[in-house]
């Protein structure tokens, strides 16, 4: 346990520097970004609709909590 703690403490002290970091082929940057976003998107499920929410032009579901009709006392 003590050894683990020492190891962890040691590991966080040696912060990596960004200077000189450039290992990825930059010509593939755009593809990498798109791939990373798409990969995460395909596994991202909107909790309520069980899928990605609708976008522009798609008919939206009716509002259950019609916020506008309820007048706040503060208004």
């Amino acid at each position: 346990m003590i050894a683990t703690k020492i190891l962890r403490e040691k590991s966080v002290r040696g912060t990596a520097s960004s200077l000189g970091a450039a290992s990825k082929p930059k010509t593939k940057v755009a593809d990498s970004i798109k791939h990373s976003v798409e990969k995460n998107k395909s596994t991202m499920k909107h909790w309520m609709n069980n899928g990605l929410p609708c976008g522009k032009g798609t008919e939206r579901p009716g509002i259950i909590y019609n916020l506008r009709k309820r007048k706040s006392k503060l208004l």
Partner: protein
Amino acid sequence: MVGETATGKSVGLGLGCDPVVGSLTCSKKREYRVTNRLQEGKRPLYAVIFNFIDSRYFNVFATVGGNRVTVYQCLEGGVIAVLQSYVDEDKDESFYTVSWACNVDGTPFVVAGGINGVMRVIDAGSEKIHKSFVGHGDSVNEIRTQTLKPSLVISASKDESVRLWNVHTGICILIFAGAGGHRNEVLSVDFHPSDIYSIASCGMDNTVKIWSMKEFWTYVEKSFTWTDLPSKFPTKYVQFPVYNASVHLNYVDCNRWLGDFILSKSVDNEIILWEPKVKEQTPGEGVVDILQKYPVPECDIWFIKFSCDFHFNIAAVGNREGKIFVWELQSSPPVLVARLSHPQSKSPIRQTATSFDGSTILSCCEDGTIWRWDDVTNSSD
């Protein structure tokens, strides 16, 4: 060394090259027009956010400034309707951040925090305070909601900690702080878009840290069924991040996941996109692979936060002169699709909010104004 094409744009030259830097020559791919401007008050507005949690409310946004939380709706033709407004009982409260969340039954919540360190959870359905979260020892600088489980919110604080909360039960589940934690104010935090266990945080210690709550997930699940007092819940400390790196040389005031990459901003007039890579030999220590940079002129003051549309196609960021830069995120080299400015917009823009599809960009300003910009690229008028 970075080569330049005839158009003046920077391009990468292959393996081992410097990060690609976006050109400030605007491509004008999109044309935005001011469609509304609101003067909410005289106190600074520090945060504005669209509701991406519930698709029924994609055109609803919230702002915070002073001791007030206001909910608006974007309507056709640039109209902005005030729906609700909440005033904190403490006149000295100054809210710095706001986020949308949900109760387990889908009730929309607005969660706000600020200088007092107390987080207010407002039930927007019943227009009442649902709960108040007491725990942070100082200001709350950012609140974000787990979109995969939107009863979970996370807060970043001046007390150098990040806390995970369950808005349904009011429980503080986890505290990310300690031996491996931040050494100064935590200014920003974000949930990973698909890895439910991962968060990224950054702050005044110039570092970005990635934390995993995987080994504490049983406590997260327990928080949903906890029926005893929240103070009796066995809140756990997460002392060591799985990754730590210094990407910037100064305060890091905003970080967002872009897939498995991270967008982060300091006070160096740019947003950086980079990939965190963990060293196998030394867990917790990381290597930074900077992919590209998005310049933002006159953005050398801290607490200016950028926003992305839901699909991460664009990012909008303001500066201290009231201008907004809209960058295309997924292209390389980065493309500046629009530069938004107006003669009357001269105050620092503390935060932007980009709508679901990027068709509307909102900005909240130091002078208490809210500006609405709408995409008119395909408009016939």
